[in-house]
């Protein structure tokens, strides 16, 4: 046992007196960026989902081209722009993006809680809100890039396939940018909602169930038959996406008693991720880990 020396020497003082370099948000961004891509499963997750969505969309265009001879004259005439645009980002592709991006977004946070890594992360960066803000920024950037690549690649591929039947549309199509923007933002919206649910629930399995329920099941179960269910349905991000991505002029179906209010759907689409982020940032500072 070495002797206990209560008097610090000169070199001891060098150990105990520490000047912190000025904390920079960009260091947190670098850390979170590296944290995301240093995991093989994440790299594969992003790449395979992008390919999957691309395939779903191209496949739908191929199916329409193959069935073209069976379409009636009226169907062919009205196919562009609505049907053509739908082939560039199908409902199934939307569901896939919803689930994949929602889960990836949730996992980016809940995997830290589930593994206990969050304690190491917060011990390294006691400024929890700043750290989570960096994570959100990195996730948003990755998902925006994912959305841009998938949306434009799908659009190019599907429209190229449909052009063989002269059913393709171009980026000059009136009203198309709003629909494209919704598709580009869908992964970000889903991922941030997933992250918000993860921040509230903090358990892997329950979070994934919640992501599937909130993003997909609830809007699927809600109908437009009653005022309150219609209101709820129209307030769900997936229904907002479906509406925003529809290039067919908004038709009022006389059998739908409570139709969508068009002007509100962008708000629905953007408020979900915004509220999720705020909830996550508020909770992260208040709870023990």
């Amino acid at each position, binding site marked *: 046992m070495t002797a*206990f020396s209560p008097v610090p020497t000169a070199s001891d003082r060098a150990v105990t007196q*520490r000047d912190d370099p000025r904390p920079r948000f960009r*260091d947190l961004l670098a850390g979170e960026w590296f944290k995301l891509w*240093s995991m093989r499963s994440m790299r594969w997750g992003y790449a395979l989902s992008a390919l999957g969505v691309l395939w779903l969309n191209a496949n739908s265009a191929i199916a329409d081209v193959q069935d073209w001879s069976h379409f009636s004259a009226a169907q062919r005439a009205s196919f562009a722009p609505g049907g053509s645009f739908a082939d560039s980002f199908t409902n199934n592709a939307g569901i896939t993006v919803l689930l994949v991006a929602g889960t990836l977004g949730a996992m980016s946070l809940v995997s830290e809680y589930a593994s206990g*890594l969050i304690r*190491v992360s917060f*011990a390294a*960066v006691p400024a929890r809100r700043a750290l989570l803000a960096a994570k959100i920024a990195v996730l948003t950037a990755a998902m925006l890039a994912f959305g841009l690549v998938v949306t434009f690649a799908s659009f190019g591929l599907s429209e190229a396939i449909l052009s063989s039947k002269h059913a393709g549309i171009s980026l000059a199509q009136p009203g198309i940018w709003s629909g494209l923007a919704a598709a580009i933002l869908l992964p970000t919206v889903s991922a941030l909602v997933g992250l918000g649910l993860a921040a509230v629930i903090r358990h892997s399995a329950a979070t994934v169930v919640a992501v599937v329920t909130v993003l997909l099941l609830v809007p699927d179960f809600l109908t437009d038959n009653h005022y309150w269910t219609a209101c709820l349905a129209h307030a769900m991000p997936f229904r907002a996406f479906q509406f925003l991505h529809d290039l067919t002029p908004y038709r009022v179906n006389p059998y739908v008693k409570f139709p969508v209010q068009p002007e509100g759907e962008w708000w629905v689409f953007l408020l979900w991720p915004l509220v999720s982020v705020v909830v996550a940032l508020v909770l992260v500072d208040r709870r023990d880990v």
Partner: protein
Amino acid sequence: MIEVNDLTKRYGSTTAVDALTFTVRPGCVTGFLGPNGAGKSTTLRMIIGLNEPTGGSVTVQGRAFRRRPRGLRHVGALLDAGDVHGGRSAAAHLGVLARTNAIPLRRVGEVLDEVGLDAAARRRIGGFSLGMKQRLGIAAALLGDPPVLLFDEPLNGLDPEGVRWVRDLFRRLAGEGRTVFVSSHLMTEMEHTADRLVVIGRGRLIADEPLAAFAARGAGARVRVRTPDASALADAVQAAGATVTRDGDGVLLVGGLGSDQIGDLAFEHRLRLHELSVTSASLERAFMELTADSVEYTAGEASAGEASVREAGDAR
């Protein structure tokens, strides 16, 4: 320097930590000892701001750790070696931490070298043994070259060589003037590691003193004697005023006499001794006796103090 002041943590009606006050000084290894469920981990978590105290306060180097924007240059902590993501490599795990704290990335290689994980740097943590994870956790604690280091049960899962390495490392860190605070629920681990002890039971402070002072609180050192002439020796030492406990075949535990006196007595009576040693049971006994009232989970109905003291003796 860690200053814990009237620190309290309640979960509902359970009080995990009850008005703890103690100071952990730089320049020595301080053991943090208590039975399972005594509140050690909760206290450590409150020190680095992971858990918010219900009452009281704790400062590290004069400041609440939670108020610092970055932590690794101030406190290195290994709370649970399992607090890692199995999908990352050891180098990547440390690389994330280094980046967030603006620590040069060459430190990652340095600390991996230091803990002997350089060969495993690129391997996924998921495939690591507990001992390797402990080493990785120690590497993470050393990353920012901090003046204060906390370790929660760091010897778990380490092989004997690893245990010796960790003890030497703690000594060296303390020798450099750092504050080293190491928790354990085993007295025997602390015996060869710590200079000072903070002992808690059921969230309350039991002792805060140098290791030697704590050991002196026990029922006194005892001498273990192995001899083929057990009954004759027992009579001899009892005649000299000692207390004798039989501890298995041919083994006596003698209290109240030093080993030299017992050796002399045996020589005078022409009794053969095969072994004569001062037991380290004194520290364990001190610990058991002091924490007997505060053991959270006891086995069976037997009176905790008596039973565990006897078991500790028997196990030797």
